[in-house]
């Protein structure tokens, strides 16, 4: 059996906590792997041969036990999957279903080094919009903000996505995420500017202050707030 297929099997076994070979669990694996039940039985056997799992046939149903190598490979694949998926959803703004499908294909080819770097990258850019969410006083808030506000904004935003201030009057945009400080984003959330929501820019002044229409009301925001809202055009 190809190693990529093994990885898919192990991933499905761990994700679904499959511990024995019952008709139910075979069905679960078949659904997860998009295969026939008959194929699954063969597949499990092949995994046994590759020494990724052991099958004990003592009880009423045969029990599946992951070997050390099997568990390691499976968990590694799952991690790759998660990292890729979150990259697709958060940084690229894909919807979660197609992100997961895409991750399923790419996870087999990506080297651990690539995944590690990607993970660090997501963590860093993710940090920017999650920072001080646990810290209502805005402890590291000023840091994040002044960095963005004072410096040229292209150095750290250009690669994450486009922010609201880059769009013009009458553009309709979908919010991907909001950045910078719980206090700011709290108020935006309460007004209805949450990820996934579509807003229309009603008015934009030369300095970037804008009025956006959201949920049958209109909200005026300062340019520095508009820069915290990352969006994509719909």
């Amino acid at each position: 059996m190809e190693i990529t297929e093994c990885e898919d099997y192990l991933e499905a076994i761990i994700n679904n906590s499959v511990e024995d070979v019952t008709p139910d669990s075979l069905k679960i694996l078949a659904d997860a792997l998009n295969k026939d039940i008959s194929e699954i039985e063969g597949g499990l056997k092949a995994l046994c041969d590759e020494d990724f799992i052991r099958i004990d046939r003592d009880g009423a149903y045969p029990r599946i036990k992951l070997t050390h190598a099997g568990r390691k490979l499976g968990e590694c694949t799952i991690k790759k999957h998660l990292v890729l998926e979150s990259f697709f959803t958060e940084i690229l703004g894909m919807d979660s279903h197609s992100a997961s499908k895409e991750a399923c294909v790419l996870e087999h080819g990506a080297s651990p080094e690539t995944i590690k770097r990607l993970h660090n990258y997501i963590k860093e850019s993710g940090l920017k919009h999650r920072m001080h969410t646990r810290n209502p006083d805005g402890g590291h808030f000023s840091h994040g903000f002044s960095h963005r506000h004072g410096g040229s904004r292209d150095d750290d935003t250009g690669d994450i996505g486009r922010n609201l201030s880059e769009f013009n009057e009458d553009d309709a945009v979908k919010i991907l995420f909001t950045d910078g400080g719980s206090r700011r984003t709290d108020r935006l959330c309460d007004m209805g500017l949450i990820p996934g929501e579509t807003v229309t820019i009603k008015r934009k002044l030369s300095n970037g202050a804008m009025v956006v229409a959201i949920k049958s009301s209109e909200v005026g925001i300062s340019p520095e707030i508009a820069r915290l809202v990352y969006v994509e055009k719909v």
Partner: protein
Amino acid sequence: MDDEIRDESVSERSEKSDTLKLALIGNLNVGKSLIFNSLTGIGVEISNFPGTTVGMYTGSLVHKDKHYEIIDFPGVYSLDGVNEEETEVRKFLLEKKADRLIAVLDSAHLERNLYLLLQVAEFQIPTVVILNMTDEAEKQGLVIDGDRLAEILGCPVLKTAAIDGMNIDRIIPLAESEAKTISAVTHYDDHVEAALRSFSKVNGSDRLSGLLALEGLLPDSDLSETAGVIAAEIEDKHRMSVHQILAANRHNEAKRIRGLIEKDGKFKPARNFDRLLTRTSTGVPIMTVILLTTLICVFIIGSFLEELIVELFETFLIQPMYALSLPPLLENVVYSLLIAVEAGLGIAFPYVFVFYILISVLEDTGYMTRAAFLADRAMHNIGMHGQALIPMVLGFGCNVPAIMAIRQFSERERIIASFLITMVPCSARTVIIAGIVFTFVGLFAALSIYLIVFILIILTGIVLTKVTPGDQFGMILEMVPMRHPRAKQTLTRAWLRMKEFLFIAMPLLLVSSVVLGILQFFGIIAAFQDLFEGFMYSALGLPDYASTSLLFGILRKEMAFETLAILSGTANLGSVMSAAQLYVFAIVSVLFVPCVSTIAVLYRQMGLKISLAVCCYTLSLGFVTGIILNALFNIF
């Protein structure tokens, strides 16, 4: 002994159950204050949440021999925010200080209002839901099924139009007998729900405290540590803050409920007018014209009414008082009191109230938020944002309510605003400029004083922007829908503002006036005058009695003018002082230390350090400007 204790607790309880505490809760601009005023009438107290500066109105009423206390919370958008108002309302609800909640919703903006309501529901307090502004929703062609909403929420729902008084009389009976805790529950994200289940299993905590703990809003509970760890995990998984996750869930639920009860209207009002107001090219001229017209109107109506009031006082109170020939000390005290009341009313009704009415018209039409939006850019240059326009404009009426209106800003913005608002020429200062400079020097001289003050405000703002620590907190301001102003609502709003002036600024005025009167009686004022005589003359070129007048100016700005007239012995100031002297005097007293009421409010809102700094700054600014001008006048 035991019996005694039991008796006490029983009587306490019965007293408590006698007065039912009702609290009005809702978003901003949903007509809450109007409902509050219709329910309570004029007898309203302004109190603070204990230990804070967040104001709330309380009033009481008797309905069918039962006593009710009604609390009007400040308008909030959510209950899990961290700003002062949201925090205080949340605390109040957590301590179960209200027996019933009256949740006021704007029918025309149901979804965002339901968002707050879903949060209110979690506090498990018997609630009546008011669908207000039904008239406006109807105009927009929205059809809302109130019965269906009642079914979904599990609590009574009442449709009202506060502006026409529709169904307002049914609120109290409904709250009394039928209020129920809302049974609708928002289901959150699986991870959040799992965390809540584990909290209730391990710590036995309820849903609400679990949610608040996850958001880090219950710092002292046993939950906080576990919740912090779990929240961090959830945030890691979702790459969103817990608040964002909950907000998204609540918004979705609100949207779902709205879908069930509302049939969307076909008719949407055209907004061409709105487009003119928020565009820079047309909006800025419109804003300038509107604000200037407002100030000029206040000025004209105000000076006319003030004269009337002053005359009435002189004829009917002050002269008869002198005719009584009281003992000197008492006479002095009574005189100080009377003159304080006179000046208070002389400023309060003609200038401040007229100003508040005009401003309320601007607010009720929804214009103020447009102006604030337009001003955002300019305000950034002086360290604030568009929202700060409203308190700054209010400052033209009286600095006291203006300073009270800055509490929703960040610390940094509050510090900057404290300085700038106290420099805004309020009604009393307008009286000085009008009475001294306009009358004896000329119109352009009077306008030039405004110009100098504005330039100084801008310069101060620019400097403060550079030196004040802390974060700038940008504008997120709901644009209030454009409406036709209605007299009832406008007057209600103006009257509520006016009360802040009457109940907070006036008492301080009376007390300080009496103190100053007594000081004068014992010759302390004269000693003070001697002390500063040299300085006043050499640096400012002003006669010695000017220092006394300035001192009275701390009490109330316009008293500087009145005292000057009294001390110089003539109302025709032009005959005893030169134009340059009058001009210098006016500008010094306009800039010089804020009045005592403003200082008191500053102290309460911002603490000793900031209020001292403001006083010292304005004092030196006043003198330095005066010295420079005096020097300039001497050269030319």
